[in-house]
């Protein structure tokens, strides 16, 4: 027999090791509250807990902790005391009814990690309406962590008394009559009862196995939405309807996340029918339903589409078509969610479909689109300007004209393209862009101005060149203006061009050569007999400066 001191020392050593394990555990739990679980500090904490517990278990096989309200005991010795206002490890376990907790040899870091996750979850959860630490431990089914829990929720309840329950003894008719009635019906248990009634054939056993697998794989989102549609028809008051719609919102979002556009389409069609029914029978519900439609069109719900849309390409034409069919059933507010997706999409065909959907929505109500046009997202706004191009109404024109003043060069340019695509009606509005800071916008404008013979454009250009010619320092731009004048111009421009080319009063003007050159370019572009005569005259001019201008202009042209 060992002496008392030896025994005490051993117990002390054991308790000390238990304490160390618990301390490491507490630190890990704290870190779980401070850092994400994938953080190196959390991972390190788990490694330390595992190592401490492993050391303990290697020496003593199991660590069983008895739980009291604010402390943990190991072999009747206190190994942890909850600090006041600090950690409450013992109380957390005690609160949910844990009586003891045991860690056994074989414990791996994964188990510890999961265990900590559960502890952390229920440490911060004050509600626990759908479970607690004990239910979570049960579900986790740890192979090396055992526990015993008390039925704390029913502690103060008396057990029911079986004899107090009424089994419904005979009141109507006699037992004999009953037996007679029952004997007339089929009975499963005749003398030689067939075992096939309860024994599965190998085929049935296989079918059962498949049935279970199939059910595990089954996407219940559709079933749930079908169910909710039935449920919706049964609602009699606003509060209940709102509850159902709230649930529905989540299910709808799940369906979107799974990319089932076909079902989403059918669902919305049915939902529209439900609305019609409500309109005639329960008009009080309409505002609630409309609000619901707005909610499912919000970025929070439709955002679920982003990831799915990235996986689509032109080959998924059927799905893309379903996507379009489904989206157009949403209210115009969906634009606020769909617009930002444009900049993320890789597939041009998906992008195009989305833009067309937005256009359809804008026809119903342009305000969400208008709202998005103010966004600083250049790429999205550029795409939305293209969408405006699909619309041919007055509002879209106004918006396009507004967009020609946008801070982004690309957006302005797109707006100009879309406006010119509508013809030359907006030329006066667009003409000021001839001085746009962006060269590409200027070029686009001039290309458009010089696109065809047009007296109005000619007049504008003549006026511009007469008024602003001394201010223009960009020779390239100046040449482009003259070229455009030539292309759109007529005999009306000849006097102005002749004067530029031959007027001697200008001889000392600085930069006159560039205008002479411009006049040559314009005359070449003009290409009329009168213009050709002037050019011929210029080529034979006595003044070298005119001849040089002629020659250089031809080189450039």
């Amino acid at each position: 027999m060992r002496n008392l001191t030896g025994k005490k020392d051993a117990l002390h050593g054991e308790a000390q090791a238990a304490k160390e394990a618990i301390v490491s555990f507490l630190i890990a739990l704290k870190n779980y509250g401070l850092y994400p679980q994938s953080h190196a500090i959390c991972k390190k904490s788990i490694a330390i807990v595992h190592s401490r517990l492993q050391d303990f278990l290697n020496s003593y096989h199991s660590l069983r902790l008895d739980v009291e309200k604010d402390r943990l005991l190991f072999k009747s010795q206190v190994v942890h005391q909850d600090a006041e206002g600090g950690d409450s490890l013992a109380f957390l376990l005690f609160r949910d009814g844990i009586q003891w907790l045991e860690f056994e040899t074989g414990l791996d870091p994964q188990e510890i990690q999961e265990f900590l996750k559960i502890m952390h979850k229920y440490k911060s959860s004050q509600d626990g309406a759908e479970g607690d630490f004990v239910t979570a431990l049960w579900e986790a089914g740890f192979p090396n962590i055992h526990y015993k829990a008390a039925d704390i929720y029913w502690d103060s309840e008396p057990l029911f008394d079986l004899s107090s329950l009424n089994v419904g003894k005979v009141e109507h008719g006699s037992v004999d009559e009953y037996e007679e009635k029952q004997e007339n019906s089929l009975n499963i248990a005749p003398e030689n009862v067939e075992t096939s009634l309860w024994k599965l054939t190998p085929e049935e056993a296989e079918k059962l196995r498949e049935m279970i697998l199939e059910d595990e794989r089954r996407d219940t989102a559709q079933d749930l939405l079908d169910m909710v549609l039935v449920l919706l028809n049964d609602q009699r008051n606003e509060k209940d309807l709102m509850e159902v719609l709230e649930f529905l919102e989540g299910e709808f979002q799940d369906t979107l996340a799974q990319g089932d556009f076909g079902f989403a389409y059918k669902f919305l069609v049915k939902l529209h029918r439900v609305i019609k029914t409500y309109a005639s029978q329960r008009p009080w519900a309409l505002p609630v339903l409309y609000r619901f439609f707005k909610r499912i069109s919000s970025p929070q719900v439709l955002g679920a589409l982003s990831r799915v849309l990235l996986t689509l390409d032109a080959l998924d034409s059927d799905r893309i078509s379903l996507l379009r069919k489904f989206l157009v059933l949403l209210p115009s507010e969906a634009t606020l969610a769909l617009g930002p997706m444009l900049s993320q999409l890789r597939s041009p065909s998906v992008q195009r479909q989305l833009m067309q959907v937005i256009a359809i929505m804008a026809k119903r109500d342009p305000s969400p689109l208008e709202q998005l046009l103010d966004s600083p997202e250049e790429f999205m706004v550029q795409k939305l300007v293209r969408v405006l191009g699909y619309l041919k109404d007055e509002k879209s024109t106004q918006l396009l004209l507004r967009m020609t003043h946008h801070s982004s060069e690309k957006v302005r340019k797109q707006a100009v393209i879309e406006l010119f695509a509508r013809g030359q009606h907006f030329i006066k509005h667009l003409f000021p862009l001839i001085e746009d800071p962006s060269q590409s916008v200027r070029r686009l404008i001039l290309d458009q101005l010089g696109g065809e013979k047009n007296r109005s454009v000619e007049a504008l250009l003549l006026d511009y060149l007469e008024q602003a010619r001394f201010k223009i320092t960009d020779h390239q731009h100046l040449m482009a203006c003259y070229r455009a004048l030539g292309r759109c111009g007529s005999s009306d421009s000849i006097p102005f061009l002749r004067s530029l080319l031959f007027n001697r009063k200008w001889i000392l003007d600085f930069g006159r050569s560039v205008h002479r050159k411009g006049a040559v370019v314009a005359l070449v572009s003009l290409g009329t007999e009168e213009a050709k005569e002037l050019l011929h005259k210029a080529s034979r001019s006595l003044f070298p400066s005119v001849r040089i201008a002629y020659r250089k202009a031809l080189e450039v042209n």
Partner: protein
Amino acid sequence: MTDKTRHQGADSQKSNLQGEVFLRAFYRLIQTVKIHQDNNHLLIECAKDLVNRMAPLWVDEDYVTIKVSRGRFLLEDEKLLYRRENVNLIQEMLRYFEQRNLQGLRFHRPVKDCSFEEILSFVRILNLAEKRSEPMKWLDQQLDETSFLWVEIVQDPRVVSEQRNLERREMARRTYSYALSSLKEVSEKIISQRRPGIRKLKRITQNMIDLLTEDESVLLGMSTIRDYDDYTYTHSVNVAILSLCLGKRIGVSRVSLTRLGVCGLVHDLGKVEIPREILNKPGKLSHQEFQEMKRHPIKSVSQIIKLRASRDLKAKIVLPPFEHHLKYDLSGYPKLKSKKSISLFGRILTIADVFDALTSPRIYRSRAFSPDHALSMMLEGSGKDFDPILLKVFINILGVYPIGTFLYLDTGEMGLVMDSPENGDKARPKVVLLKDDGQGGFKKDKVVNLAEKDPRTGLYKRNTKKSINPSVLGVQAAKFLV
């Protein structure tokens, strides 16, 4: 007598004497510890003496076992002989063991390394056990807490099994009771416009699954509980139990079983919204009343959606209650345009729901069907109302005569089916015989197996004449089963 047998006899005599010496040392210690403090020299000597007396007995094994069997002490399965000198000692010790329901003790070799305080502490616990209402249970708990690795209580496996059985029955009773009260609480909260959570229902379902894993028949026995006055609550708990049994048998994972059990508990929650006049109407419902009644699965869904839980969890438990009257071929209610088959859990709930309903006394039906007749009726709807494969499995679990069926036997005896044979003849279950208690009721008699044959004639000793639902006789089957 040969030399060999003479030699064996001498050995046996020697070990018998050693056993007697050990028993005497044990007796001395038991008595001395009652008088002295731990630091008493004599007491310490007694403790040392006990350990020393064990030493010669550790020759073949690392432990020594002393147990009581049929009024005799056995030392390593060898009877301790009575001698004139030891009669008093043995009788005293037998009484000591008997007062504590103690069947035996096993001392392991590490006892020689433990402190004498530990030995004294153990003996004091042994002495105290006598005063406890359940000395063995208390002793077991105490030793469990102290974690003495050198001593263990030896129990007859039959006794251990019976004790465990009792514990399971107790747990089953508690679980059923808590399930009922939790369900009532949920309903009351709904009625008073509050939002109940499902934590308790989840926890109780997990307890049911634990029980089911250990002993299916105990839980099935509980599912025979009937309450005519408050049908919906017992019905819901019974449906949960029956669904869990079916789910477990077909291999549903334990986490999914929790979901299935909770579905069973809440499947009729919508009935809180059905007017009581309709729920409790004797006789046939009018068309309008029936239409209202048919709305209860939808109402259940509405109530489940309002529970205080995450949408994810609610989405997992809402569908089967919605489907439980849809029927396998979707010909039931509520009417659906979709032709998708109902979910696995929906099909399970349908079977459990109908079985419990048919076997329960209801206000609109003068009698409940006997469980075997209920199964027969359900078989008629196999493939139409019920999934045929699941129904087969269900019958396989319950047997031809399900637990709780009241049987009239050809011997003139009456019995309640208490277990369905796992293998063998499903029509010949174990039954607990019931006798007239002289007060218009019944009392429990012995348990018999209907598969038992008379060895002389080769014929079955007992055959079933007819079956009946126990409620017809006013019998609460569970009272005799758990």
